[in-house]
């Protein structure tokens, strides 16, 4: 598993027994200002390092929100532990709210972990083990971190950005063919009672990602979610 260091010269730390590796705390010292990205939700802090590793720290009663098993025997003074499932998948963005956290890989693959808000008995399909795409992907599936499969008109799509609210997820995606972007779409799922999904109306809950049709092929440059709201930046000059 990859080792947490915060400069690029960390190859030698691979394959070193875990106890012998430098602590995250010591590694952070070599970071410049703004190099670390930290987000928080109801139970967990999540940290993204400049080299794309994802660490979490939080309430051990909610391991699903940690995205990894709680580690009580850790000698790590910072409390942050790496999500090992993502250790070979460098990420470029994290977002977190409520009881859910997500990470977007450099390759445009979206991962989420967590659970529904207390009192909500429905779950986003990707988080719900019983409805995971109905395909035989058990070998690769992690107990905590789930892959969000995104398709536009049936074609596999790459995720360019995403946002997470208290109980909802917004995904900006595109389909490429031979290096050309042929389709752009924004999709959303989760709690919709405040209209935060943007798909029209105020549906109580939407389990599977649904496209926000009004935004088809628009050049969305960024997405941010509030607890029960969503914001998009759109480039209208294109």
């Amino acid at each position: 598993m990859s080792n947490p260091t915060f400069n690029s010269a960390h190859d030698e730390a691979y394959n070193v027994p875990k106890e012998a590796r430098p602590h995250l705390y010591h590694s952070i010292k070599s970071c410049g200002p703004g190099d670390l990205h930290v987000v928080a939700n109801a139970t967990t802090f999540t940290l993204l390092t400049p080299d794309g590793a994802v660490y979490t720290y939080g309430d051990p009663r909610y391991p699903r929100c940690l995205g990894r098993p709680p580690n009580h025997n850790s000698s790590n003074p910072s409390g942050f532990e790496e999500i090992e499932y993502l250790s070979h998948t460098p990420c470029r963005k994290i977002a977190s709210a409520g009881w859910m956290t997500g990470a977007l890989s450099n390759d445009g693959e979206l991962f989420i972990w967590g659970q529904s808000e207390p009192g909500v008995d429905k779950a986003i399909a990707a988080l719900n083990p019983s409805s995971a795409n109905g395909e035989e992907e058990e070998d690769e599936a992690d107990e905590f971190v789930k892959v969000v499969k995104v398709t536009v008109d049936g074609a596999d799509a790459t995720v360019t950005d995403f946002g997470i609210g208290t109980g909802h997820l917004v995904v900006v995606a595109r389909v490429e063919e031979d290096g050309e972007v042929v389709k752009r779409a924004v999709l959303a799922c989760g709690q919709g009672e405040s209209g935060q999904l943007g798909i029209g109306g105020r549906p109580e809950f939407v389990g599977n990602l649904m496209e926000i049709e009004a935004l088809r092929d628009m050049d969305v440059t960024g997405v941010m979610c509030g607890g029960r709201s969503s914001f998009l930046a759109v480039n209208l000059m294109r």
Partner: protein
Amino acid sequence: MPTSPATQILPLQSDLADIIRSTHEELSASLSDNDEIHGCGQAALSILPARPDACIRLAHEKLHAYPYKDVPTCWRRLYTEGSLWKILQILKKQQGDWVTEVIRILDMALILTGGFGRKELIEKIFNTLSKIISASQTKELSNRPSKRQKLENNCLEHNLTPSPLGIPSSFPNSTIPPPTLRFSILRVHNLSLEAFQTHLSSGASPTPLIITDALTHWPALSSRKWTYPSYLLSLTLDGRRLVPVEIGRSYTDTGWGQRIITFREFMTTYMFPPPPSPSIKTPPSPAEPPQTGYLAQHDLLTQIPSFRADICIPDYCYTDPPPPSPSYPIPGPPVPQLDEPLLNAWFGPAGTISPLHTDPYHNILTQVVGTKYIRLYAPSQTRKLYPRGTDENGVDMGNTSFVDVGQAMSLFPAEADAESGSSEDAEILERRREFEARFPLFKDAEYVEGVLGPGECLYIPVGWWHYVKSLGPSFSVSFWWN
């Protein structure tokens, strides 16, 4: 299309108008300065009347974000206050099955927060709903005299005909044969308070006792018997009240969880599960075997005071018990001196299990319906019982043993002593070896055991380890005191 229960309800308009008015008045009155709800901040408080749902959701999140005992009072207050504003909206509109919805919201508030600061108002609303429900039932009975008469509406009419909803009129007797008892708990007949105090003060530390015939005056055992499911449904607003239920064999198992469901759903799903259908058309389901549901360790009698009226706190709880022995400290954090006993209800089908554990209080466990097998180990045996430590989620399980007493009893039945044991099959011998390798001292742990029947109570001294298994449908009430 089934009739919505709300359309069956003949609203008692004046009672309803009264409760709407008094709820509105109480909620609109300015919150007192020392009400801890101010800790939620002005933003949350200012949207209470208009957006109670948002307040309930915010508070619900906070209730889960803290360990249960550390939740700041302000969030419990906000949950309660939001729930009351919410039901006020529903009471004014009266759409759909509004009665059931109001009961659900108020019970969630009671179960999650104890109805903090608004217990009396909530109880008043429940009383009004109770009137409305019984009025509608009376009307329904007179309209439809024979065909769909609901037996549970009339607790005097207990015959053996199952109700249309598949709930029999009485709980069956014990279905699991009790094990052979080897070291019986001392049984005494209606012990006097003085004699009980003497028992507590005698010797180094008091021992367990089964006391018979001490509860004969309880209505729950005589005039308003809890053995009748229809009566229990009538106490729970026709089964609409919510109860927290533990799902799974034992709280030490993986996959164990808790659900909050209506009392009626608890009865039909877990107390009287539908028999497996022998139909050939449906292939045998690969799903897990039916799970045990247990309404366990819940302060039902505070949540639903009509239960409380059918029992009394045993006088034995007004004695002065000795403190825990300093040589065998109680696992877990110290507990405060109680002003009055803590009551818990334990209601479940045959085969519910409380794994071997200790409690930080003295306990009078009273048995109202059915029988339970109980095995007890003195605090001095702790070393031989393999207490757990902190589990992987950071929960201190030091009061619970690693030993599965049920497993031990099936591997080493009391009757087996008399036999030679040579005819045992290899698999059992292997499992015995594994058990003894893991818990070598357990076989030397001294214990006492007994079967507790209706109307009997068991004194469990503080710190004594106990394993409890119901031998049939069972309703017990425990009284913790110190």
